[in-house]
């Protein structure tokens, strides 16, 4: 996948870090110190459908489908996460118990065009 930089307009991953101390959550979240809430942004013009972050054969297949069908008939391609990982949290719950859990699919590692 591609990380957004400057004024990139096509599909890429935008990094955004939420520091728990800055938002006053460091008293109940013991670990980690923050959350990488990255997100996908950017356009997916039709010739980009299926890349990056996916196998190039998929990209070729998509392009062939578009050529075979009327390009206007093809639906828009969207910039979506193609690789995600869990957010591991160690926190106090409402009874001051200490809880550790992994929340699946919370951190976006790569983006791509559907």
């Amino acid at each position, binding site marked *: 996948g591609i990380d957004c930089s400057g004024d990139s307009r096509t*599909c890429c991953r*935008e990094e*955004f870090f*939420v520091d728990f101390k800055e*938002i006053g*959550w460091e*008293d*109940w979240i013991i670990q980690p110190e923050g*959350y990488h*809430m990255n*997100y*996908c*942004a*950017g*356009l*997916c*013009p039709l010739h980009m459908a299926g890349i990056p972050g996916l196998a190039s054969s998929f990209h070729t297949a998509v392009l062939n489908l578009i050529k075979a069908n009327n390009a206007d008939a093809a639906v*828009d*391609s*969207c*910039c979506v996460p193609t690789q995600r990982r869990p*957010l591991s*949290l160690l*926190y*106090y*719950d*409402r*009874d*001051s*118990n*200490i*809880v*550790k*859990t*992994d*929340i*699946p699919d*919370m951190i976006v590692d790569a983006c791509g065009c559907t």
Partner: protein
Amino acid sequence: AAAKAVWCPACGLAALTPTTRRDVLVALAKQSILSKLHLPDRPNITQPTSRGALLTALRRIHAQQPVGTAPSPGLPHPGVGEQEYEILSFAETGSSTSRSVHLDFHFTRELAGSTEILQATLYLFWAVPSPGMHPITIRFVHPDPTGGTTPEGGGETRLEVQRDGWATLDVGQTIQNLFKQGGQRLSVELEVMEEQGSPLLAVHNDSHRPFVAARARARTPHRVQRR
């Protein structure tokens, strides 16, 4: 978005001022974390656990697992739509006499709901006053309308304590039954024979505070696939 222009949901963010964009993203991050933890709002921590008690508890749990084994050997990994929790619940000491100590462990509603208890162990630290065997009776109780306590159906367990140290008790089924009845508080009564000099439960020494270590698995509500 203009009718023909290709619309990308996150592009709307680019149109915002940096400050507004940051506020939107922080609000989204808070909402996302709280909803995945099934918390209506961030918890207000009135009595954080002391570092000593936390470190001692973590050391005990790791000492309990043979070196190199996974936290719960033999237990299947969580499937799609399931989320696993490891919980450390420290005792609140209730009424105590020279012969008995009452302990309460609280579990939040979010966990007590559709949660399957995979493992749960009660850890107790004894300080034995004199050599020899000291019998102790451990029973699980629930409050009765008169304000006293009534033993749970699970009967009682007798321990023979011989020296200072930690003792453990499997409470997995007891907590599972408690959750099935919609309860959220595990109450434990410990009774010792006074004439033989009672092995004191070191409840007042914070790093020897009794605790329950549990592994639970909750089903996270997810979209039902339409056939």
